[in-house]
């Protein structure tokens, strides 16, 4: 304490000088005339230069806090980006489905897949639309990419559809380019194939397979898939492997087409076969 007192006594002239200079400067800067505006501008510039010089020296504690804040913000923003990406993808899917709905003259019922199996020989999907939505057995199920399958079971609010990867589903199909007919089916071991195609038929990899006019269940012209490999099954027929138009592993929404088989056509064909 004594030392501090001595120190103050030793520098009292400088302390008084500082006090008077500060009072004078306060008085000066409380004036509002042209000179002071210039002085203030100069003082602000000078202080700003000093501050920018001082700010170049990093404050470790401040940096730690800033780092923590930025990490938290980063996680928050990453979550937000993920949610936005999800929303964007859903938007794209729904937009495509809506455009399909507009194009389809038969009328469609939209539905969300609530369950699906892809690894069995008889694979199905369960959708959240049923009798209450006017869904009936044998109605085709599609997406904007192509055919998914057909309805095989209906409850009040849910339906089950056979998908292309189901051994029980056989579809009358044709090669779009060469109009060659065939039966589109699942071989039960992982591949979709086009059978009953004569060995001499014009089918090449890349050809698009679509539903045929002969089908009593499905409207004609719905894409089924693309030929990826052609070979010989036996002396008479080709073995054609097809990549499906629909990617079943990422399928989430579908449309059920309000198209039922023609009863008259079905009855006529049945009578003729029985004769």
């Amino acid at each position: 304490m004594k030392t501090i007192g001595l120190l103050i006594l030793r520098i009292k002239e400088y302390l008084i000088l500082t006090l008077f200079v500060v009072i004078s400067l306060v008085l000066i800067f409380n004036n509002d005339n042209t000179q002071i505006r210039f002085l203030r501008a100069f003082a602000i510039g000078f202080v700003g230069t000093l501050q920018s010089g001082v700010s170049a020296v990093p404050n470790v504690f401040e940096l730690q806090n800033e780092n923590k804040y930025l990490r938290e913000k980063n996680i928050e923003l990453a979550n937000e980006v993920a949610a936005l990406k999800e929303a964007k993808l859903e938007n794209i899917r729904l937009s495509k489905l809506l455009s399909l709905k507009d194009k389809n003259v038969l009328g469609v019922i939209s539905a969300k897949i609530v369950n699906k199996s892809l690894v069995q020989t008889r694979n199905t999907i369960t959708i959240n639309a049923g009798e209450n939505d006017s869904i009936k057995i044998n109605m085709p199920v599609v997406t904007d990419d192509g055919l998914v399958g057909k309805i095989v079971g209906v409850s009040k609010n849910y339906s089950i559809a056979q998908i292309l990867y189901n051994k029980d589903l056989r579809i009358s199909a044709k090669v779009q380019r060469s109009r060659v007919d065939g039966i589109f089916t699942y071989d039960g071991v992982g591949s979709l194939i086009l059978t009953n195609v004569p060995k001499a038929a014009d089918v090449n990899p890349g050809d698009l397979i679509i539903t045929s006019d002969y089908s009593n269940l499905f409207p004609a012209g719905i894409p089924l898939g693309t030929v990826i490999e052609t070979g010989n099954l036996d002396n008479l027929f080709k073995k054609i492997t097809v990549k499906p138009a629909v990617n079943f592993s990422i399928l989430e929404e579908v449309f059920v087409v309000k198209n039922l088989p023609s009863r008259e056509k079905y009855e006529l064909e049945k009578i003729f076969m029985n004769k």
Partner: protein
Amino acid sequence: MIVSYLKYIAIVILLVAIQKTLIWLIALSNYNISPDLVILMVIYVGIARGHIEGLVIGFVSGLMIDVLSGSFLGLSALCYTITGFIAGYFCVKEREDSYKKYFLVGIVFLCALIANTIYFLIFYQGSPITVQNIFLIYILSTTTYTTLVGSLFILFIKDNKRTAYIG
């Protein structure tokens, strides 16, 4: 101590009054250049009594000038405070021998130059006058004129015990 302060302040009031009322009689007409009698008093107090007295009298007299001039409150206070402090460095109390008179004239010139430089550079900020002209027309001429008047006082200082150091 308070008595001596009051004595100095009384003299300062008198000088300020002269400065504000009669000094125009000896002002150089073209640029209204006049000697600064108050600053001579501040320098005198600084030399005779030291830093603190120089500071106090400088601040008080500067404030008086500012209040009476009514234009730029604080500017004269700042200049005179600094002048009083600088003059305190030449305080005779600390010295064994006395100053020569021409050396005293030099001290007056130096202190007045510093005070006028601060005052006029701030006062003419934002005006179209260049720094060169401010220095030549106002700073140097006012300083010279003030030093001349100060020299007259120095010449007439009597060699008594107190002033022996100064003279």
